[in-house]
């Protein structure tokens, strides 16, 4: 297992994909979590004092960690799914599975090592996105002449933990899709259509068709949103981020995310072990 982890860590460090995905995510968090709301704040009718104050409050250092984690349920998941697909699917693109799986560590170890190294990359990406959010909030506070009030370390750690927890579940799903569809293209298409289209449609419909509510609680997007909401992040209707809503309790959301992580790794491992390797 040590060789498997060392080699996969070496591979991921040398590849462009995690850097591109990581940088894209940081830009999205800063842009949509802080940049766009700040433009809205700056252009909002000055008479709407309460709305402006509430909006600015979310962009200051005291709330930067919750604003950052609020970006994960909708777009962060999709970005981490892309990373997961690239972790396994790229092997089919280069035809490297046969050489990789006929020597060195066993097939299950290789798949698990790939997901673990991907998870380590996710931790780095989530920490970098949080750091970028903090820096942005400091800039906004300075521009607006507001005092720098820092959140509690435990609150920041909880936000980072939730971001990583959500990201690893999506990454595992992406890794499974890369193996199921034996490549990157179809896996990305199916994953993104499911994530951004079907899940949102089902989740929205569940609001008007009660029969769909049991389905919504097992979807990855709504449960990610529920876990973020459990941190106290406001939902969209409360002026918070898209995708944040308390459909289920925090522990249930954790259980569903864990189930997706385990199922993603299991599906990828079983398929790699049982199939012809091409």
């Amino acid at each position, binding site marked *: 297992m040590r060789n498997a982890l060392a*080699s996969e860590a070496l591979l991921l460090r040398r590849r462009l994909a995690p850097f591109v995905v990581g940088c894209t995510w940081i830009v999205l968090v800063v842009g949509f979590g802080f940049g766009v709301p700040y433009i809205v704040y700056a252009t909002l009718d000055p008479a709407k004092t309460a709305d402006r104050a509430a909006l600015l409050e979310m962009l200051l250092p005291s709330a930067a960690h919750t604003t950052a984690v609020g970006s994960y349920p909708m777009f962060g998941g999709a970005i981490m799914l892309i990373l997961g697909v690239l972790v396994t699917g790229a092997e089919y693109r280069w035809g*490297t599975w046969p050489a990789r799986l006929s020597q060195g*560590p066993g097939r299950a170890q290789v798949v698990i090592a790939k997901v673990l190294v991907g998870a380590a990359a996710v931790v780095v990406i989530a920490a970098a996105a949080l750091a970028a959010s903090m820096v942005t909030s400091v800039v906004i506070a300075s521009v607006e002449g507001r005092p720098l009030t820092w959140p509690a370390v435990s609150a920041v750690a909880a936000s980072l933990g939730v971001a990583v927890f959500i990201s690893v579940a999506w990454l595992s799903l992406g890794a499974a899709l890369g193996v199921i569809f034996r490549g990157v293209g179809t896996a990305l298409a199916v994953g993104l259509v499911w994530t951004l289209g079907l899940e949102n449609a089902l989740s929205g419909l569940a609001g008007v068709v009660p029969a769909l509510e049991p389905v919504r609680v097992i979807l990855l997007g709504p449960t990610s949103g529920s876990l973020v909401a459990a941190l106290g992040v406001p939902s969209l209707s409360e002026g918070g981020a898209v995708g944040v809503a308390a459909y289920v309790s925090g522990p249930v959301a954790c259980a569903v995310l864990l189930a997706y992580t385990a199922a993603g790794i299991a599906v990828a491992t079983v398929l790699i072990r049982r199939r012809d390797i091409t």
Partner: protein
Amino acid sequence: MMNLPGPAIAVRDLRVVRGGAEVLHGLTFEVPRGQVTGLLGPSGCGKTTLIRSIVGVQIVTSGEVTVLGEPAGGPALRRKIGYSTQSAAIYRDLTVLENLRYFAAVLGAGKDDAERVLEEVGLAGAGRQLAGSLSGGQLGRASLAVALLGSPELLVLDEPTVGLDPVLRQDLWGLFQSLAERGVTLVVSSHVMDEAARCQRLIILREGEILADGSPDGLRERAGTTDLEEAFLRLVKEKAERVR
């Protein structure tokens, strides 16, 4: 390299079905240790499927494949086999050296191993080149370098000389011979009959069956000709007449 008793590869009644069609029809043969064995036959005859069965990445329908005394694909074999696929198994977005260091890490091979194998395949000057910018022949050699990492006991090479100029082909066959002299067993597939003469042993496949199995001299004698390509054609004709 230890010379253990028994064949390097023993195949018994191997049948493989791919895409609903039987590709290998009950093959039985053995490959001795420390020799270069050529796996020859026209395109589509089942060479790659047989090779994939030997290295353990192909699901077999029935039969047994034993490699270095272990069932094909067994965990103990993963450090003893080097496998070079027909199309180069190389990450095109990494440099050649990064590819080799990655595969060396997979095997737990020494850090200097990457430079050693680059030298052996004649790519010492291309180590820092992005693999995606290599020519087809260079890519093939980079893939071969991966197979040489970690000093394997058995090297299985699927058409390693395709796209190479005659000088490079001669160099590589020289490398194969020197590896065999060191006790490494090599199975080298090719559809080019003039490469057959460089092997100590030949297994000729056609339509998923073994057409001939023996030394180059033995095959020439059996077919009554000194030319191996002509020998192959005569064997095909002989078999067709037998079937009729």
